[in-house]
């Protein structure tokens, strides 16, 4: 469902021109989970941002169901983010003015795919039933990340992009959150692309891709 061809991306920094991605090729089939690995600065997050339509590539193509993402206008990119993907960040990024219930339902409602039964089910599965009327600040980090995962999956996206979703959590909560995430992805049958440092975590996904200096260093099943 997702094909990446020869993707290049560079940034202008104070030190000069910095090439972050130098020709990435990648294919992700429907229902497959992929761990995106590599040391800091290898370009993992940038690749994720490009896939999410948060940034545009300098060259190369991202094809979604055969259509190039780079050709789309900003409004179409926004729509891609809204309807095509679910996003989970390390920093949760919940909407502070909305309570947990509203946060959970937010993207699904934006995408026009709000299914109360599914959201209730998600809340149950994520253990959030008792927290629905709370506000993000009133939650622990693990709770917040569970809300973020619920929000991303509530719209039943074909693709879930996660950027170190457990990076801010301690090991125990991290394990629990991740288990939930994988279970739900499995239930939903969506593809998953997850940036992670964790070898142990990567081992639980279908495939892995290791980046080094903006290039694909290794691919493994």
């Amino acid at each position, binding site marked *: 469902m997702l094909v990446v061809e020869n993707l290049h991306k560079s940034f202008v920094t104070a030190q000069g021109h910095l090439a972050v991605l130098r020709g990435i090729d990648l294919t992700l089939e429907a229902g497959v989970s992929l761990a995106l690995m590599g040391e800091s600065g290898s370009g993992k997050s940038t690749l994720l941002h490009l896939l999410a339509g948060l940034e545009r590539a300098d060259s190369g193509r991202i094809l979604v169901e055969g259509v190039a993402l780079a050709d789309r206008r900003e409004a179409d990119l926004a729509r891609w983010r809204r309807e095509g993907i679910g996003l989970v960040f390390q*920093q949760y990024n919940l909407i*502070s003015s909305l309570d947990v219930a509203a946060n959970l339902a937010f993207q699904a409602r934006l995408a026009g795919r709000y299914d109360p039964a599914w959201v209730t089910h998600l809340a149950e599965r994520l253990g959030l039933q008792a927290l629905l009327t709370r506000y993000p600040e009133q939650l622990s980090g693990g709770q917040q990340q569970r809300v973020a995962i619920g929000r991303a999956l509530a719209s039943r996206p074909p693709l879930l992009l996660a950027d170190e979703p457990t990076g801010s959590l301690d090991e125990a909560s991290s394990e629990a959150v991740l288990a939930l995430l994988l279970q739900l992805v499995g239930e939903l049958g969506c593809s998953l692309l997850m940036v992670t440092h964790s070898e142990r975590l990567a081992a639980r996904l279908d495939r892995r891709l290791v980046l080094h200096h903006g290039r694909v260093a290794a691919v493994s099943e």
Partner: protein
Amino acid sequence: MRLCLLALLSHWRRHPLQGASILTGLWLATALWTGVQALNSQARADYARASAVLATPAQAQVLPRQGQYLAQADYVTLRRAGWAVTPLLEGRLRLPGEAGGTLQVIGIEPLSLPAGSQVAGQPGEGVDLLAFIGKPGQAWIAPDTRQRLGLPLGETMPLSEGLQLPPLVEQAQLAPGVVVVDIAQAQALLQVPEQMSRLLLAGTAEPTLPAELADRLRVQPAEGADDLQRLTDSFHLNLTALGLLAFIVGLFIVHAAIGLALEQRRALLRTLRACGVGLATLLAALTLELGLFAVLSGVLGVASGYLIASLLLADVSASLRGLYGAEVAGQLSLPAIWWLAGVAISLLGALLAGLSSLVRAARLPLLALAQPQAWRQAQSRWLRGQALLALGLLVLAAICWGLGDSLVSAFVLMASLLLAAALLLPALLDGALALLARRCRGPLSEWFIADSRQQLPALSLALMALLLALAASVGVGSMTQGFRLTFSGWLDQRLAADLYVSAPNTTQTQLVMDALAAQPGVEALLPNWTLDTRLQGWPVQLQGIVDDPHYREGWPLLEQQADAWAQLAAGQGVMLSEQLARRLNLRLGERLTLPAPSGEQALPVVALYADYGNPKGQALVAADWLRRAWPEATLGSLAVHLAPSRGEAVQAWLEAAYADAGVRVIDQAGLKAWSNQVFERTFAATAALNSLTLGVAGIALFISLLTLGHSRLGQLAPLWALGLGRRQLAGLSLGQTLLLAGLTVLLAMPLGVLLAYCLVAVVNVQAFGWRLPLYIFPGQLLNLAALGLCSSLLAASGPLWQLARRQPADLLRTFAHER
């Protein structure tokens, strides 16, 4: 301490905008306050200068019983009877040429001044007496007056009709608009040989006049307070109140910015304390930092306050001259003390605005994590506290309304109303948003309202400022417009005659009257006998009028008894101006006791009438009655009703025949134009200060939004990531600001009308003695509402423009850096 201060100050490098907003707030607050104070003190200093033209210990004076002048021979008689009197001759001198303008001429006789008196505000030692009384003599003038009129220094100046003004000599302390000359020169310039206006008595004793003079002269006892000062007090109090309002609005900005800076530096403060910096040191450093801001903006504030004052001075001095005959210089002086005072007021403001932040910093727990929820709880406690305070203020307002009977209580009423409204604003807005939230169905609209409520605490101060400024604008605007309407209607009725003629004395006026009676087209001649006296210490003019249908038809009465005019004509009633009735606390039907020389006379009050713009009291009585009770009543002016289209001819004839005799003629249109001009200028300064205050509120909103911009990004970025376009986000943000501002504007309108009501029904009554009907001008309200919305739109557009222009990378960065 130094390290601590440096660490604290580093914050401003990263957030220059916050620093700028603190500076701006203090600067504007100080500037407006200083400006108003400069205007007031300039005016007051000039009154002092005016009364110091002749600062003798003398207070009591000898005045003519009839007309403007007393004979010089009577002065000599009194001197030779051992009276230590010194003569004054006063009059107005019209300057020739385009420059035009008039000067008040004061003729003095320096040799007869009691020892130790001051002339022109300075002791006599520095005065070249011989040059003053010799030839060609001297004309003393204040430097500002001379410059305003563009007169040459040290040269004899030819005037019309072969007269000449002696060489001008500057006297710094002299009152503006005044030229002091030797009495000999004054008699020549004013063309009143061997005449004097009044004689000042040394000391406060009131000796009895010799019998042969008593029928021509009278001794007026010493007057306590300075009339000018008293009459203009209310005018200055109004200005002061406006200045205070502007100051408070400015402090709102400062308070907002200081609070935000503290919030953002919580972590830094904790770190510093964790590193072993004592609480006292930290507080001292914070205070010092605040002090730096205050000093800097204080200096800036004085400079711009001075600028504001100098721009407004022309209007203020014109209205003071028109309303009270008070001369105020056209130039400001800026004594060094102002700089200190400005810095002091800025320091005070900074301390007021920063006090709560300092207290919060002092209470900051050493190891607590940032707990937004705790803050939110504190916020709701704070809201409850505000609401309680607002209720207290409303009670105070009610007390002032019910029991207050002074200008101060009137202003306290207004201030507590305004402040209560401002304090209630966040709660009201929150309530309104909560109501709106119930009607929202979509995710975006829910977010829109929820997020607006979340922004409310940070914006509430700026919105309060907007509320205050707008309400004040509506209030003052309605009052001004309403006054304009009332005033011009009243003027139309009151100024019904075609020509108004004034002459220097009774005899002259009667001559003119007789001559006019023989002129064709003269339909009615209404002589106006006057007598100046004091009732309960207040200067009052008694006007004796004749029985004429023109009065019955034209003179507007507020309240009257049946047959009021008939009773007046029969000498069995008196009509009082509204302000006099209020001051004397007299109602219709009650009796007014008048201190006639032949014994006290009591007349029932048969009617009350409006007498807008007159700082003195006025009472109408029958002319015959007045002349019987006060033989010294004078006839100084005539109202002439003419057949249609005879106006110009009669005026021209009068001017040709009597101009040399000092007879002045003004037509109805000229008098109206003059009155309206005084009116306009009176409110010009008010209007200017008002729009400045509105501008300050706009800036407060702008700065609040700007400081909010950074944290807003953290709240908007997730939405963007979830699939909203940047433009859409900017639009939503703008919508939020407009919603809040719009609600505020909506609340400001009824508040403004309430304020207008307080102004016309309470403040005006206390300040001037007249009550005006309340008018509401929907067009004006719409205009101001639009202005308020526009200024908030403008304030919101800057930060939003930045948001719309943000690179995605900036938004992304918030995912990595925030929290």
